[in-house]
């Protein structure tokens, strides 16, 4: 083939693709003008041409995967299908297929639906197809509130969704299997109060959660599939967070109250508080940490050197040049941590008219046995303003978590001893008055019995609860 002809064919193919895209965009515009759902595939095209779109606010039933089963009120669906068929001048699915010139198998399911007396179980893809043939608007089902298993649409900016998003971002894992319907959220935590809070929020958005029989040093929760897809639709990617580098929920960046709630939960799940001494004076340090997989960012030579330390934690300056650290590794800090830093600075500035003197640092690199390098980033704060802000955030509306109790006690100690050089006896007293960071076994057992008994009856069994606390017996 001549070079000119080959180039012409490439150009033609490119033009055809652009035409297809333009037609898709036109269809999307027409749909938007009618208030109808977006045609499938248009989202990706938009994003490829114009970059990521603004986060959407509602999650509709038609955005569920085709295989997701919905339960619909039978009285509504039967009557509505009959009416739609009458409007088309047909009396049964056979006539409908004939009129639309489609195989009867495409609409045969209607007969099955008519045989279901109370609730019709239908796959999303099939329901969309039949409603399309019958010209029934998708939104009508939401307006009439006919779904029995879940209420649609779901407000992705609502407080429970934002709270759940934060929990999953911190201590959860958004799982997707081989099929898009195989989704769930895994949430593991040792503190029963946080487990209860998480489950309450899952229920508030109409979902279900169960606590698995104990096998780990923490309570292991799994949610239903729709809840996982809602959190995904709100912006959290599936898979390992160190690889996907997820951002915070978009509302957190604009709403100060939700930002404070986010920081509250994040402090309980990803935060630390500790004491240190500067010239004999007590300092209270608050820290937040997150990790990111940086394997693909490393030059092959540095990576090769690091891989000689599998299973170890190493200092970045030992293996990487200063130039590489400041130009590649540091700017790769987890998006969520960078956003959190920006939020804290903004809150401190508006509350105390003073800038936050703290920055995100690379704490260490971890080389896994599988040869992946993860950088751990940390934000350490010890200014009086940061301490006051976190006191307000963490203790104004406590959920009853161990970390809240510990932080409250640490603040009491700090208030008593701050601003002067402490004697060795006073230092010892401060140490003894600081509750341990490990949650005491008795506390876990009593809280679990009190808060989780109605969700998982096994939590009333102390023997089973000790499976969780046995971790403390390790050397």
């Amino acid at each position, binding site marked *: 083939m001549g070079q000119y002809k080959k180039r012409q064919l490439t150009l033609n193919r490119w033009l055809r693709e652009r035409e297809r895209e333009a037609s898709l965009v036109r269809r999307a515009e027409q749909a938007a003008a009618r208030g109808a759902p977006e045609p499938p595939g248009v989202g990706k095209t938009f994003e490829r041409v114009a970059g990521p779109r603004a986060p959407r606010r509602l999650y509709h039933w038609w955005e569920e995967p085709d295989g997701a089963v919905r339960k619909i009120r039978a009285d509504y669906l039967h009557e509505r299908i009959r009416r739609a068929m009458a409007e088309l001048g047909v009396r049964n699915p056979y006539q409908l297929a004939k009129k639309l010139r489609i195989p009867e198998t495409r609409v045969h399911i209607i007969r099955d639906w008519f045989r279901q007396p109370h609730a019709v179980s239908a796959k999303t893809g099939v329901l969309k197809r039949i409603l399309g043939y019958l010209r029934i608007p998708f939104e009508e089902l939401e307006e009439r509130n006919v779904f029995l298993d879940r209420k649609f649409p779901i407000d992705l900016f609502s407080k429970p969704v934002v709270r759940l998003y934060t929990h999953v971002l911190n201590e959860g894992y958004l799982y997707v299997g081989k099929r898009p319907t195989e989704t769930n959220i895994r949430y593991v935590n040792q503190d029963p109060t946080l487990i209860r809070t998480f489950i309450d929020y899952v229920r508030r958005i109409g979902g279900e959660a169960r606590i698995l029989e104990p096998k780990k040093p923490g309570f292991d929760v799994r949610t239903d599939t729709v809840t996982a897809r809602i959190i995904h639709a709100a912006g959290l990617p599936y898979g390992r967070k160190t690889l996907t580098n997820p951002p915070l929920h978009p509302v957190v960046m604009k709403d100060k109250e939700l930002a404070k709630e986010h920081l509250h939960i994040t402090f309980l799940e990803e935060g630390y508080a500790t004491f240190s001494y500067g*010239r004999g004076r007590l300092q209270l340090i608050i820290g937040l940490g997150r990790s990111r997989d940086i394997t693909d960012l490393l030059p092959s030579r540095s990576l090769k050197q690091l891989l000689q330390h599998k299973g170890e934690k190493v200092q970045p300056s030992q293996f990487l040049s200063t130039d590489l650290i400041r130009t590649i590794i540091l700017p790769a800090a987890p998006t969520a941590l960078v956003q959190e*830093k*920006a939020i804290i600075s903004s809150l401190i500035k508006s509350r105390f008219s003073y800038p936050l003197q703290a920055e995100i640092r690379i704490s260490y690199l971890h080389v896994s046995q599988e040869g992946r390098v993860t950088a751990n980033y940390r934000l350490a704060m010890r200014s009086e303003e940061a301490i006051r802000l976190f006191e307000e955030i963490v203790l104004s509306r406590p959920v009853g978590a161990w970390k809240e109790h510990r932080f409250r006690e640490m603040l009491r100690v700090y208030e008593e001893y701050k601003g002067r050089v402490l004697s060795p006896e006073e230092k010892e007293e401060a140490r003894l008055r600081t509750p341990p960071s490990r949650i005491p076994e008795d506390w876990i057992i009593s809280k679990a019995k009190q808060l989780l008994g109605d969700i998982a009856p096994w939590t009333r069994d102390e023997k089973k609860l000790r499976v969780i606390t046995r971790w403390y017996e390790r050397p």
Partner: protein
Amino acid sequence: MDERREEIKSNNKVVRKTMNERELRELFKEIYLKEGVKILPEKRLLELLVERGFPPRRARELYYRAYTLRIVDIGLDAELDEETGEVRSFTVVEYMTEEDWEALKALEEAAEEEEELKRALESE
């Protein structure tokens, strides 16, 4: 020109005298004290070094060396645009004292215990 920037001629070649650690710490301490801050944007720090008479390349070398000697630490700062919700991040450099390193060490130790539990929760 900063008196610590010394260049001596030997056999008609310009040989740079390396600043020792104490001198380097003095230099950075002075810069930060004069600015009245503990953290400076990287760009500003380099400008201040140049203002003190160091050529840009030498200024960068001194900054890198100060980082290696743990006189300063490099970090990332972020600012929020409250109207758009967008975040702008930039590199900053903090002047570090022994006390600062101690505080970071204490935080590392506190974090280590939590991370140990997290690893156990993920792996088992």
